[in-house]
Every structure is written in structure tokens, then in C-alpha cells.
């Protein structure tokens, strides 16, 4: 067990990253039966190497594997948990679709879902800390059709058990940092009491660093629950909303860090370095810099790869400029196994 000290304003990503064009082609070829599963796995591995390289070249301190093996954040887990089925895709916005799963039978953990992803990421990244992402129980429940359980609450708590097993498997494999993605959390005010409980149940008995990502909602709704939420970081989108609502960061409890979203992932315009600096300066005035991480608003996967790369570079450049004037130690992360 060792401690890794990060630079001040450590940079990270939320998780997903655009798939290389050739990977998309390989996936199509696999779907039409023209290449084997083994060939596709090789392509996935190569894609992870490429996108980790993109992130590290851009200067990201904590990379992810870009979720290259995942078509979509809920679908990927639903495909690997017993009890789900799929219909045709539904639209989420514009022309972005996802295959919303339906629960039709009791849920069943069929074994590790992301451990191999972690092991491969660990083997190809040069950074001491890497980030794994897992979709949270509440979001899987909210973004699925429930055809089996009596209530959504019951479904979410069943999912908590499964996510808990997965987190423990990642911890056993040596993952230092897992982010639970809960973009749906702010959606239904009346469900927040048990939604937070479901997340806490999912992380029970897990001692590695756990972050949580929420986006595109009213953050003020979750403020009263943050004290009791057993995660150590909140990664929130702010650039998309023009840094509106930023004042709420003052209410984030002192035991929690903020992953601050500074580039818009749904807009192809690449921000200027100065714009990002202005955004970061705003947040630095509101909370201690030692508790801040800098990241894009959300996963970058829907952008063209070149745009995603440029946005990361701009983000890192802005942070590097600020590091010249903001001195001090950054946060530290415990590494379960030596790197």
C-alpha cells in the first residue's frame, strides 16, 4: 500500500472517449460475422492503448480506458447482468440513441464486469493513478424499463448488491479509484432519499477511493444529501451551463472533493484556454484548491476524436498556466498495490 501525491489541480477525464474510426469498423465487421471475437478483443485492446496515449499526450494526470469496450454506460452493464433484455434503441437527444434495457426477471451477478478492463488499463498507462468507471445502481434502475420488480426502489437495491460485488472485485484487483456514474440522480426529487441509500449500499465495505459523477440536472437537489453520501469526490458538469449555479460548490462538505467540469462535451467548438482559466478561477474562489480536480463536463465519446483531444489539451494548458501561480500540494490517492 502506498500513497500517490498528485499535482495541484489534477486533471482527469470523466470516462468515455471517442472510439477510433477503425475500431468502429471492426465492431461492424464483428456484428456481420466477418471477424472473430478474438480479433475484436485485440482491436479493443489496441484502441485502449491509443486513447490512453491520447490522454497522456494531452497531459491528463488520471486517464481512463475511454470506455472503449462499452457501447453505452447502462447497456454495457445490463448486457452482463442476468435479468435484462433489450428492444430497439431509443433517442436521448438529437440523434444520440441508446438501447434502454428492460428488467424482465430477477437480477443476477454473473461475475466480474470490469476487472479485465482495469487490468488492461493498468498495464498500458504510465500514470500512477488510473480511473475506472461504473454506472451506479440508481441510474441503471432509472434508465431501464422495469417489467419485473414491484417498484423502482426494489430494483435499485437489487442493483446495489450487484454493483457492490463489482466494486469489491475491482478493489481486489488493485484499482485505486472508481467513479460511480449517477447522471440520473437529480432527476426525481421524491426518490432521492432511497437513491442515496442505494448508492451507499453499493459502496459498503469498499475502502478504495470512490467518486461520483452527476451531470445535466439541478445540483441543489442533492446538496442536503451530500453529508451522508459515502463518496469522496463529486465530478460535476459546469461548462455546458456557462458556469451557472457555481455557488453551490460552497455547500459541498469538507470531506469531499470536486471534479470540476470545464469543457463542454456536447459542443464541437473547442474552448479557448482563457475561457477555461476564467472558469477555474471562479471555482478556486469558492472552495479550497486542494479539494479540486479538473475534468471535462462529461464523457467525451460523442465528439470527433480530434476535437476531444484538442479539448483535453486546452484544459491541461489552462491548468498548467494556473499551476504557475497557485502553489501547494495537490490531493493524494492511496494505491492498493505498488506501481
Amino acid at each position: 500500500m502506498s500513497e500517490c501525491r498528485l499535482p495541484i489541480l489534477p486533471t482527469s477525464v470523466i470516462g468515455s472517449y471517442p472510439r477510433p474510426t477503425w475500431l468502429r469498423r471492426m465492431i461492424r465487421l464483428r456484428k456481420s460475422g466477418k471477424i472473430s471475437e478474438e480479433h475484436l478483443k485485440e482491436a479493443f485492446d489496441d484502441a485502449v492503448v491509443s486513447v490512453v496515449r491520447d490522454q497522456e499526450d494531452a497531459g491528463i494526470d488520471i486517464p481512463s480506458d475511454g470506455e472503449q469496450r462499452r457501447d453505452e454506460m447502462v447497456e454495457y452493464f445490463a448486457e452482463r447482468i442476468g435479468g435484462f433484455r433489450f428492444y430497439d434503441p431509443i433517442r436521448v437527444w438529437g440523434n444520440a440513441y441508446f438501447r434502454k434495457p428492460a428488467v424482465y426477471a430477477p437480477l443476477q451477478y454473473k461475475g466480474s464486469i470490469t476487472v479485465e478492463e482495469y487490468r488492461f488499463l493498468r498495464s498500458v498507462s504510465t500514470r500512477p493513478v488510473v480511473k475506472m468507471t461504473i454506472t451506479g445502481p440508481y441510474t441503471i434502475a432509472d434508465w431501464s424499463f422495469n417489467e419485473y420488480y414491484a417498484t423502482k426502489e426494489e430494483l435499485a437495491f437489487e442493483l446495489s448488491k450487484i454493483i457492490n460485488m463489482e466494486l469489491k472485485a475491482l478493489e481486489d484487483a488493485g484499482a485505486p479509484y472508481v467513479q460511480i456514474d449517477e447522471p440520473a440522480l437529480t432527476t426525481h426529487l421524491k426518490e432521492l432519499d432511497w437513491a442515496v441509500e442505494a448508492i451507499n449500499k453499493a459502496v459498503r465495505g469498499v475502502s478504495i477511493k470512490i467518486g461520483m459523477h452527476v451531470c445535466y440536472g439541478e445540483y441543489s437537489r442533492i446538496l442536503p444529501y451530500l453529508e451522508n453520501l459515502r463518496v469522496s469526490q463529486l465530478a460535476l458538469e459546469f461548462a455546458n451551463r456557462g458556469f451557472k449555479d457555481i455557488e453551490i460548490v460552497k455547500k459541498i462538505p469538507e470531506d469531499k472533493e470536486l471534479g470540476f467540469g470545464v469543457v463542454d462535451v456536447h459542443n464541437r467548438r473547442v474552448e479557448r484556454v482563457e475561457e477555461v482559466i476564467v472558469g477555474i478561477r471562479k471555482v478556486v474562489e469558492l472552495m479550497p484548491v486542494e479539494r479540486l480536480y479538473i475534468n471535462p463536463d462529461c464523457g467525451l465519446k460523442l465528439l470527433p476524436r480530434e476535437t476531444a483531444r484538442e479539448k483535453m489539451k486546452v484544459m491541461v494548458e489552462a491548468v498548467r498556466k494556473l499551476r504557475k501561480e497557485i502553489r501547494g500540494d495537490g490531493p493524494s490517492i492511496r494505491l492498493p498495490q505498488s506501481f
Partner: protein
Amino acid sequence: MVVEAALVGSFPRPFSVGRLMSRYKDGKIDPETYEEKLEEELVNVLRKIADSNVSLVPFNMFLWDDLFEPFASSFEGIERGGLYRFLDNNFYYRIPVVKGRIKHKDATLTMLKTVKSIIRRSGIKVRIKAAIPGPYTFLKMCENKYYSSEEELVTDIAGALGEEARMLRDSGVSFVEIHEPLLVSENLDKELLEKAYETIVSKISRGLWLQTYFGSISHVLEELSKWRIGVIGVDVVEAPEQLEKILSFEEKWGVGLGAVNSRSTKIEKVKQLRMLVKKTAEKFKDVYLTPNAMMDFIPVSIAYAKIRRMGLVIGGLKNE
């Protein structure tokens, strides 16, 4: 007396259409091919709906990205901004950002004419209505960077939307369907609402369909009775309790009975739907069996299954 099956808001955009639109946007297909393929898709969907005995549909179907798109793109003083959650769904709209004085400019009329001509050419037997966002919902779901008060803003929004409604009505749609999901809000600002509807109702004297969803409007029925509303669309899936209140209300509205769940893959039972329609038809002259909201939240295959079920119910009742 009318007992009819109708859709509200929009129909889920088939994946093939989404791909077609993306390819067009990326310059991978030319405008002629795009128009031709889009027309094929539209005809295919409309034909299936009409064959299911559902005879009243919003003309925009799957053509808009979200309820606000054409208006935020066309009206002067408004631009489209970042993505925001549409109510409590995992579905997002581009927020209309008000940056100047709002003035009406044709937003949907050209599209209406195109769709009407497609329907005529293909001989599909459907009547059409036109969906537009309601001024109150627009007010609460936009970002205001220009007006100094909500009152001024809602007056101009209602003016522009009312003008659009008038033009659509004059172009021969059966109804202008005004979407006001925020009427279900417990913190409704009734003064602003009245202000908005004075303007709307002054522009469109008949054929107004007020569509609400994801909650109850029991607390606002008195106010609604002041306006000339042709049909009031209510959600009896998520707020079934409001049906009794509406049935006890002495009004001459037609009722859009939102009894088909547009957020669930479970298919409704014919018997249950039939019972609800019959009960409502005992009190109200015109009853339209509808989904409780737009159907964007369910897969196309499920939407078709639900539409067939609606058609079966209406077909059965007409035979009685």
C-alpha cells in the same frame, strides 16, 4: 360525438431516421437523397399508424429534436443553448436562450405544408394536428438573458407562439396542441399563466388542444375553464386520481385521455383502456384515447404495439 385514438407531441424517431439525419448533417448524403429517404420513412410510419386505426397525429412526428427546436431556431431573439434534461426524463433538449426581444418568424408552417403534401400524395388516411410548446412551459424552461421581468417575457413568448398557432390553424390543422406539462407544478404562477393565455386565446379562437402530462392538473381546472379550450389532454397514467375530478367538472371540453403509458414497455390491457374510455365518454362528448405524453421515451417497436392496442380499443367501441 367523437371517440378516436390520437397521438400527442411526437412519435419516437426510428434509429434509421436518426442515422439518416446524422449522415446528412455530416455531408455524407446530398439534400435530394435525404429528402427522398426521409419522406419514405415518414410515409412508412404514418401508414402503420393509420392502419392501426389511430387517425389523429401531430404532423411533426419525429422531425424535431425536441419540442422547442423549431421555435428556438426561428423566432427572433432566441438561440439554442446547452443540453438540459426534459422534465424528469433521460431525454434532453437544447435550452432556448433568450438574448433579445422575441418576435415571431415562421417556425413550422413550411414543414406543415410539406408533410400535408406527403400525406396527400401517399393517400394515408390521417388527420393532423400541430404541436407547439405552451408559453408557460416555454417561459420556465428557457434561459432569460434579456427581459427584466417574467411578465414581459411571457407576454412576448405567448405573442409569438400565438401567432404561430393562428397560422397553423389557418392552414387547416384539426387542432393546435399546446404542450403545458408544467401546469402540473404545485408552484404554478397563476397570474403569469393567465397573462400568457389571454394572448394565446386572442389569436386562436377554436381548435385549441391543451396537453398536460406527468402529473395532475386538478388544482388549475378553474383557471382553465376561463379559456376557450377545445380538448384538454390529461395524464391518467401517472395521475389517475385526477380523472374523477375532471369528470365531475362541468365543462364542454373534449378530453384527451392519456391512458397509454409513454414511459413504460408494458403493454396496456384492452379491457382496462376500454373501460376508461367508456367511462369518460359517458360525461364528455369528445374523447380521444392517447398516450399520456409524447412517445419519444419508448422504443419504436413498443410504440407500435401500444398504438395497435389503442386502435383495437377504439375499433371495438365503434362497433358497439
